[in-house]
């Protein structure tokens, strides 16, 4: 049986804090890289770079950011798994995260690399930004409810 009280992060307060900091920094990297592509999709010129060029350049960075953010997120989750899992706001966050990841690696990736109308590009960029901002909001609101 898993005993959360012996979890490293529960025993060492500094480790809990460091994990949270790494979580924030890595999600910043991931969302920032994705937002750069989104700005281009919205029609903002980033020098001569096409959205396909930006999507390629940011792919590794956003993947690393996501992997680290999700890993540290589950490390924090593991300190009190039952409370986290049973909480509606956390369930909403996890569901939105799943949708955002699927969207990012399907529709978003295709539209960034393909030849689509400005309307579609803007719609996809808006949905992408909205999804990631919603995840940040639900992370904060979780801790207040």
């Amino acid at each position: 049986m898993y005993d959360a009280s012996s979890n490293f992060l529960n025993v060492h307060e500094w480790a809990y804090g460091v994990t949270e900091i790494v979580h924030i920094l890595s999600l910043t990297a991931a969302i920032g890289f994705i937002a750069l592509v989104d700005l281009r999709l919205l029609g903002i010129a980033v020098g001569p770079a096409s959205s396909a060029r930006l999507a390629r350049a940011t792919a590794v960075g956003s993947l690393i950011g996501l992997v680290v953010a999700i890993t540290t997120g589950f490390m924090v989750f593991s300190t009190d798994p039952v409370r986290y899992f049973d909480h509606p706001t956390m369930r909403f966050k996890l569901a939105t995260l799943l949708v955002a990841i699927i969207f990012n690696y399907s529709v978003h990736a295709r539209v960034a690399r393909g030849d689509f109308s400005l309307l579609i590009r803007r719609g996809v960029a808006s949905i992408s930004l909205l999804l990631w901002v919603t995840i940040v909001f639900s992370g904060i609101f979780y801790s207040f409810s």
Partner: protein
Amino acid sequence: MLESLGRSIQDLRVLTAIRESALVYPTLLSIHLACIATFGGLILVTNLRLLDWFLTDIPTNDLIRALRPWKQGGLAIMLTAGVLLGGSKAAEYLTNPYFLIKLTLLVSVGVHGVLFRRSVYRRPEGPVPKAARLAGALSLILWIGVVSMGRWIAYYDRPSPAEQVSVDTGK
């Protein structure tokens, strides 16, 4: 002294309302964090470009110019939310060493911007100066420090009044 100053700040009606609202405070904190994630991420993008680690085929000036209005707008929202959040708990924050470190780092970010303004951030066309890498590295380190200290504010163990008394009367 900082504590009484903080108390008179946080007693302002609007800041009291923020502190006591179950909805406004987390909303402001979410806005603060969402700005860090999106616009802070763009700062990271700029820094990586200045370091020559990323998008090296795009001229530095083009990238800086394209992202500037977004970063400035994001910074304005982030700072507004941050000032309201910090102000609503000013007495607690102004006596928290990690918050003071965060403020110092933020001022350093501003100083770095002024110092490298001519040579990096608003330089005329031409070869990229060596200072660009230094500016990128400094900005990256300072901002990581700002975010880290922001989170660490919550981890400050305030000496309890009892301990203070026992120190005062210890001799």
